[in-house]
């Protein structure tokens, strides 16, 4: 029987919980024995390394991994490939990307760009006087964090300087950055802090929807829930509902379930035929797609409504 491993960043983020669900279903359908692992926190390299080693030891045919550190995990997955396992990166690419046999990912930068473009179009002429708050993840600036943040800024038409650095921009429209730990309580406090810096903020980027929900609460308590745009990335079901509820203006939806099921299918194919999956054209990964979700579509940017999104959320 073919065995496979799924190694996610954490088990506390619903995104990865969804991914695990998808993988488990696909594995059951394809007759693959799946073991799942997760780090204890975002950035827990040690646990992921140990997990890969355990997979090698147990003779897994394939490893699906969301690298918690795109550089740090390269050596161990190289070992895994040498041991004959198919390694597929999910959601986050390795650096270099070809450290894995394939990558099934959302382009996080692209996800950012989409909401940036949407926000710019939505604001129209006001975009020139936008006052932007950026609610990031945490002090250690992991790749998802800077890719989404910089993608959003680029989409909005701001010079991002170093695309791997948060907060090096000098555009006067940016009020400031603060960290949220990706949770609503962090989102709320960060939003309050930035509102204290400049009460006229009218555009808020958030690292994910829980942070966005917190930011919304802060705005509400300041009496500013109207007239401030909140954009986010992820596309979790509660997040899509928040679009419908008018909390969030737009979000970029990812497809963790799809990533996982595709990954399992690829492992099955590899086990049976030895064939490795191909990247999407022009990209160094297989794009599982990003979908902009908003109930206020703008011209030129394809999007779907929250009602449609709810059917697909994290599918």
């Amino acid at each position: 029987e073919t065995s496979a491993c799924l190694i996610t960043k954490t088990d506390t983020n619903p995104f990865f919980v969804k991914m695990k669900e998808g993988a488990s279903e696909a594995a059951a359908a394809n007759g693959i024995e799946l073991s799942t692992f997760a780090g204890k926190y975002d950035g827990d390299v040690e646990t992921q390394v140990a997990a890969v080693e355990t997979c090698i030891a147990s003779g897994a045919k394939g490893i699906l991994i969301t690298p918690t550190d795109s550089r740090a995990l390269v050596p161990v997955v190289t070992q895994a490939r040498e041991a004959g396992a198919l390694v597929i990166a999910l959601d986050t690419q390795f650096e270099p990307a070809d450290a894995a046999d394939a990558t099934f990912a959302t382009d996080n930068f692209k996800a950012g760009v989409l909401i940036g473009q949407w926000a710019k179009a939505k604001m129209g002429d006001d975009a020139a006087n936008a006052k932007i708050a950026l609610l990031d993840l945490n002090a250690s600036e992991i790749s998802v964090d800077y890719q989404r943040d910089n993608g959003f800024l680029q989409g909005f038409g701001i010079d991002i300087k170093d695309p791997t650095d948060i907060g090096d921009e000098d555009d006067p429209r940016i009020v400031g950055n603060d960290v949220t730990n990706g949770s609503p309580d962090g989102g709320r406090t960060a939003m309050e802090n930035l509102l204290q810096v400049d009460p006229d903020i009218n555009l808020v980027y958030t690292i994910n929807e829980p942070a966005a929900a917190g930011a919304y609460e802060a705005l509400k308590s300041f009496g500013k829930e109207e007239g401030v745009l909140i954009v986010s990335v992820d596309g979790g079901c509660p997040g899509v509902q928040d679009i419908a509820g008018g909390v969030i203006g737009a979000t970029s939806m990812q497809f963790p379930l799809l990533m996982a099921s595709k990954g399992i299918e690829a492992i099955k194919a590899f086990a049976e035929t030895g064939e490795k999956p191909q990247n999407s054209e022009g990209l160094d990964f297989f794009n599982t797609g990003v979908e902009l979700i908003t109930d206020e579509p703008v011209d030129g940017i394809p999007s779907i409504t929250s009602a449609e999104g709810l059917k697909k959320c994290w599918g």
Partner: protein
Amino acid sequence: MSDTPQPAPKGQEFEQTLDQSDTKVASFERKHHTLLERIQHVLHNNPTLVPVIVLVISLIAFGLIAGGKFFSAFNLSLILQQVSIIGILAAAQSLIIITAGIDLSVAAIMVLMSVVMGNLAVFAGVPSGIAILIGLAGGVGAGAMNGWFITKVKLPPFITTLGTWSIFYALLLWLSGAQSIRGQDIDTEAPFLKFFGASFNLGGARITLSAILMILVFVVLWYMLNKTAWGRHVYAIGDDKEAADLSGIRTDRTLLSVYGLAGFVCALAGWASIGRVGSISPQSFYEGNLDSITAVVIGGISLFGGRGSIMGALFGALIVGVFRSGLRLSGVDVLWQVFAIGWLIIIAVAIDQWIRRVSA
């Protein structure tokens, strides 16, 4: 034997002169020479003043650095609101630390109980009031579980709560499926969960009920600790458990009540956090344990137990809040905020130590 009745001489021969002995006690008045010494002396006699002074100094300092924005009634009330949840946790933590314990599970209990309340009220259709009561009772239960291990199995509090932290954390992930409960769902299904999020204006300030709850919790616990027999027992246990035992305190029962009460306060913080955060997220307050301990130690409560006023923890929480807000408004990077908080802890406690020196 003689005609004037004399008391029979008592004791050994050399003790006969004791009746004439002097009753003076050695006592010397001493002037405090320098201003510094005099300040140290005043603070030594009123140790709770220390965090208050640190608070005032940091307020002034950030007022000067960050300007009027910082020093507005609104911003100050905002800080109060921002620290309210960690403040309530710090109150629970203080209770434990005064008994010479430590509780690494406060934040896990808090989040677990907010998830319990949310699941019951929003998804299971239990009336909010009952869901909250169940959550608060769960807090008592979780605290009592800690207390049981500590008093009956005689495990050190650090180890017990290190263990239960993992246990509660796993339970909360399992119950929530790692998903948050949305604010709007709460609004429609069980708005009462958000009770402590309500606020009103007072001058330029915006007072949230969660801030009032925090102050209330501190006042009530202060009263219990200082004005009731139970409170005296809590201090006595932290001071010297064995002596407390021998001098007639039911130490196990008292400790159990302390952990249960702390668990209750954590659950209360869980309820208040729903109002404050607006939604229920299993990811929230992951570092709440350390934050609460930080507030307590900055507030001058001894980790060795038995010393310090619970009010110190309130000021400790406010000091951290003021620092965070002040640094933020002065445009300091998150990175250097972490750095500054590290020094704050060390310096605040160093000042406290200096004041408590015997030579005061």
